């Protein structure tokens, strides 16, 4: 006998409430702002999709979006191969394993704004260790408050320093899960080091690497704190990434409507890219 009733819904209720309060309701208020104009005093005027059109057509948004993609592209292209390379060269057993793991985990444990402040001081031309060294010892003219290139080099380096460990740790987890027999078989088959990497290590790391790239994409695409503390988006607008621009519009200019529309577009882009990437990476497994 099968009893049919709707009691099971009660079990879903707590989660539903939680999701509603921490995601759905805040998100709906943003949707609400994005289609209206307000001059304060809780007076709203219906705008339809005007804000969306305005944002999508604005050069300022295009420029910020371009910088955002460039930043994410740069850090991924550096952090992923570098992370894999470090994971490959880490010892698999013995005394140095925990030492390496702790050293790797350290940068990730530092709060984001502290990382920004650290690199800010580190790169100051007059008193910062790196800034002084570059300017006075090597004689390279380096000042990220003046030079956009220097600013970009600094924020990319900072992100690499902060987050390569994540790729390292995930790749390492994938590597240590490969049974010895695979390496032994490859040796017997006469495989080169490159073949071992290409046909054994890389395929076995694929799942964790997918997760690592996805996490790094989302985090770097939404990055705010570190560049805000480090460069504040400058010099000029050269390091004004999407999130920094968004905060400028929302809190600096108090343009709630356009800011809300931009938030939604921003969210949609992150979601779309993540989904595309994940679908492509897992397509093979389903066949």
């Amino acid at each position: 006998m099968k009893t049919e009733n709707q009691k099971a819904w009660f079990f879903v209720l707590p989660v539903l409430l939680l999701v509603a309060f921490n995601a759905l309701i805040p998100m709906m208020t943003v949707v609400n702002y994005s289609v209206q104009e307000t001059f304060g005093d809780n007076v709203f005027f219906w705008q339809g999709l005007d804000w969306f059109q305005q944002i999508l057509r604005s050069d300022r948004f295009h420029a910020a979006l371009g910088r955002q993609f460039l930043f994410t592209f740069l850090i991924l292209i550096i952090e992923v191969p570098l992370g894999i390379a470090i994971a490959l060269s880490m010892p698999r057993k013995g005394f140095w394993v925990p030492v390496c793991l702790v050293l790797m985990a350290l940068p990730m444990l530092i709060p984001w704004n502290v990382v920004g402040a650290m690199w800010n001081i580190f790169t100051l031309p007059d008193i910062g260790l790196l800034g002084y060294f570059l300017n006075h010892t090597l004689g390279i003219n380096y000042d990220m408050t003046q030079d956009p290139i220097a600013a970009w080099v600094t924020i990319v380096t900072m992100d690499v320093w902060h987050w390569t460990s994540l790729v390292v740790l995930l790749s390492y987890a994938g590597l240590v899960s490969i049974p010895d027999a695979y390496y032994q078989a490859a040796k017997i088959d006469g495989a080169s080091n490159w073949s071992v990497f290409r046909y054994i290590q890389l395929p076995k790391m694929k799942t964790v690497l997918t997760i690592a790239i996805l996490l790094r994409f989302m985090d770097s695409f939404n990055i705010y704190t570190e560049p805000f503390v480090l460069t504040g988006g400058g010099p000029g607008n050269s390091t004004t990434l999407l999130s920094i621009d968004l905060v400028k519009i929302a809190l600096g200019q108090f343009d709630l409507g356009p800011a809300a529309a931009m938030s939604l577009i921003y969210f949609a882009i992150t979601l779309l890219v993540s989904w595309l990437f994940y679908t492509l990476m897992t397509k093979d497994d389903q066949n």
Partner: protein
Amino acid sequence: MAKITLSKLRHSYMPNPKSDSDYALKEIDLDWQDGGAYALLGPSGCGKSTLLNIISGLLIPSEGQILFDGKDVTKLPPDQRNIAQVFQFPVIYDTMTVYDNLAFPLRNRGRDEATVERRVMAIAEMLEVTEMLGQKAAGLSPDNKQKISMGRGLVREDVNVVMFDEPLTVIDPHLKWKLRSKLKELHQRVKATMIYVTHDQTEALTFADQVVVMQLGEVVQIGTPVELFERPAHTFVGHFIGSPGMNILPCTYDGAAKIEGHPVALEGPVRGTPTGKTEIGIRPEFVSLTTEGLPATVTKVSDVGRHTVVECNCLGHKVNAVIDEGTAPSKGDQTHLAFRTDQTRLYVDGWLATDPE
């Protein structure tokens, strides 16, 4: 293909082995003839995998030499020894097709594509995997994966020896038998020397012409399956091979063997004067229930199909008897046991000490 000689081989995983017990392998001298099918049989931890890894070159022995056709290969890396190894868990290059998997060892050695194709097709046909060649290897069933890893070993024409390290561990029982006969058939077709490591006596005895039984890093006996069954050189072999294993009964020896004062006739003369622990070994197959002989009480009767195993308490010792047909006793029965004289052997400190008449 080659004859393999192991000369004074010892191996320890410790940097400075001191006593004998520090060695995972204790002094092994062995000759493996070209084209033979051998099995290395022993319980887990007896050193058989260590020995296998030394032959394949994955491990360099602490002492001694390995010769392939008289040529010293002790220090050569695996890829220069022309050996093949099949592991416990199938090793497959997941991202490649079955064809590419089979072609991999040849391509790594720079063979031209025409040769590669000829060899791959021949091996695929032998293993009956031709229709899977275009498929991704990742999606295969465990037994097919294991076939492919075997194929990667056999695809090279110049393999000196193919080694199997418990290759049927992950295979379903009903496919084990099939794959085992496939292996036997392959051996007859390719005529390569094959070494099969296992702790399963059925696998060893059905596959090999010669079985090497190992215990605690030592070779205890080398022989054909029949020799191992009929004349175990050591009580361990007697125990380990056969189901149930050989009955080993402590006895005294003063010109005649006696179990708790009851004389027992042996197969023939005893070598030298036994000093040390003396035991009588008799296979359950050669114990019969009679009206006279050693007094015993039946403690357990198990019907295992074709025959019945009767467990008795004989003068305080456990003795198994295999009764073919007819009247099986029941638990608690008083009976007498007779040992077939030509199958009753004396062991001194574990080692066989009698010769046949």
